[in-house]
């Protein structure tokens, strides 16, 4: 200590090479930090922009009159004494009920999840646990290739090929309906669920399988009761990712669902989804009008949906992990 008082501490001298390395290291760290913050800033700016455009709905008198919250979420009189939920924002008396859009979104998303979740998870389980190596090496890239197909192409396929087939198969009245759109969506999200689930399943330590087999469990029991639960958080993440894509996917629903604002739970009826409404109407809407703000408000709602869903999924995942590891991790 005394020495330190009389003789100031001198940083150890570095060789020029070491100093250069240190500088380079710092520069790289700085660059990465900058990139990360740019990403976060972009996200925040997008949220601010979308929310700002939607805000006019609550601040401007004209917009408040045309699209108040009660008009968006409660039944309005379409004809005298005939209340209904309609989405017709360019009518003489604009009708802006969100309910048919919610129903449509839920319908198409539900169909796609019902098809894609089992298909994706069982496909992944097969690829990770049962498929011979050769087959697995073929299966993975083929399914991942499906993920690379632009959604407009999938939508076109649903519109041109699947619509007539599904109509005949289920004897629906209309070729464009929630079922076709949901199946088209399923094509888009199966690869997402498959890939992420497969990664989660292969990441389960080998020792788990060996222990299970050594105790006398069959390969199927091992896969179903040991590997699958151990990979549950990853698989749940896969499903959440798939759900997020299904709810926000626009092009397929826009092309294949028929987009009629009907409220019915029949899969043979048309459905109009939130995202497809934005896509269909943003092109020609009068900028700054209540209709314009309304479309941004739909965007805010979609954002909230996925946000809340992700939050719920991450808390649930934490609980599962805790249960599986007995609170050790």
């Amino acid at each position, binding site marked *: 200590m005394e020495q330190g008082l009389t003789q100031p501490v001198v940083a150890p001298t570095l060789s020029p090479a070491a100093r250069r390395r240190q500088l380079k290291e710092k520069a790289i760290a700085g660059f990465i930090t900058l990139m990360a913050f740019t990403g976060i800033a972009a996200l925040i700016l997008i949220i601010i922009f979308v929310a700002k455009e939607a805000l006019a709905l609550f601040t401007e008198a004209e917009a408040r009159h045309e699209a108040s919250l009660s008009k968006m979420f409660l039944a309005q009189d*379409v004809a005298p004494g005939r209340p*209904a939920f*309609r989405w*017709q*924002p*360019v*009518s*003489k008396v604009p*009708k802006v009920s969100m309910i*048919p859009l919610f129903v449509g979104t839920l319908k198409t998303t539900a169909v796609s999840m019902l098809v894609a979740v089992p298909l994706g998870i069982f496909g992944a389980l097969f690829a990770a646990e049962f498929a011979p190596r050769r087959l697995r090496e073929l299966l993975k890239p083929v399914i991942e290739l499906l993920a690379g197909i632009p959604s407009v192409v999938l939508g076109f396929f649903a*519109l*041109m090929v699947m*619509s*007539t087939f599904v109509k005949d198969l289920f004897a629906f*009245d*209309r*070729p*464009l309906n929630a079922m076709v759109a949901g199946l088209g969506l399923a094509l888009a999200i199966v690869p997402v669920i498959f890939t992420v689930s497969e990664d989660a399943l292969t990441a389960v330590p080998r020792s788990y399988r060996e222990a299970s087999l050594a105790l006398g469990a069959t390969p199927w029991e091992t896969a179903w009761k040991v590997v699958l639960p151990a990979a549950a958080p990853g698989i749940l993440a896969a499903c959440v990712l798939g759900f997020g894509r299904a709810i926000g996917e626009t092009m397929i629903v*826009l*092309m294949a669902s*028929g*987009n*009629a*604002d*009907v409220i019915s739970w029949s899969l043979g*009826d*048309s459905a*109009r989804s939130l995202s497809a409404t934005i*896509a*269909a*109407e*943003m*092109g*020609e*809407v*009068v*900028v*700054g*009008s209540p209709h314009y703000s309304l479309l941004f408000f739909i965007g805010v709602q979609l954002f909230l949906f996925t946000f809340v869903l992700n939050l719920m999924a991450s808390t649930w995942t934490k609980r599962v992990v805790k249960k599986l590891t007995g609170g050790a991790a």
Partner: protein
Amino acid sequence: MKTFIGSLIAGLLLALPLSAHAGNVTVKGSDTMVILGQRWAEEFMKTTPATKVQVTGGGSGVGLAALQNGTTEIAMSSREIKDAEKQKLRARYNTTGVQIPVAKDGVTFYVNEGNPLTALTVEQLRGIYVGDVTNWKQVGGPDAPIIVYSRENSSGTYVFVKDHVLDGEDYAASAQTLPGTAAVVNAVSKEKNSIGYGGSAYAKGIKELKIKKGNEDIAPSAENIKTGKYPLSRDLYFYLRNKPAGEAKAFIDYALSPEGQAVVTKVGYFPVK
């Protein structure tokens, strides 16, 4: 590599004054009109290479919004400018804009080739689209439910049909909306009991309905649309902030000239003159 980047930068610097050159006309708007606009631009630039005409689509509303924001000189629109849009123009530029009809288009109703009907009255079409008529039997066709196709509610054609066929009433909730005329034509060609509408289309598998008026069935032919005899013809417009001047005026003059109007016919619409 260095020389490559160097030449790239030099090239960009050279291109800068070009893009800021006064001989530029920007045209933006209606998707219905974008092919027409591009043909006009092509032909026009052949005779006056000094002027660059840039044509982009996006929709009538997009073009008119660009006009309000000052990002385009000419807006193409398949509908008339709305009051809200006029007010914005007045607030910003102290003008209500200049409207120039440049072509005519007939809105046609399509049915499947297998449908025995050839003509319907405007009242019958209204009944179908409002939802009062739900079976082909009610308008003299076979006993089958009508599958109704419409355009998305921001389309200029949607508004035109709403104003001129439905008398401003709302479309039935069961009317399915599709993005673009091509999608409507395709859907009608595949579904036997369906009906749809759009510009005059030349496609396999569909039939264009005539409009029944009195004892006469009026076909959406060039002659009937030009003379206004066909009841569902509409104008396609150019909108500008102020009276056209300079290069923009030259371009519009060309579009309205006999050669320009011949292009209109070639593209599939109808001349205004």
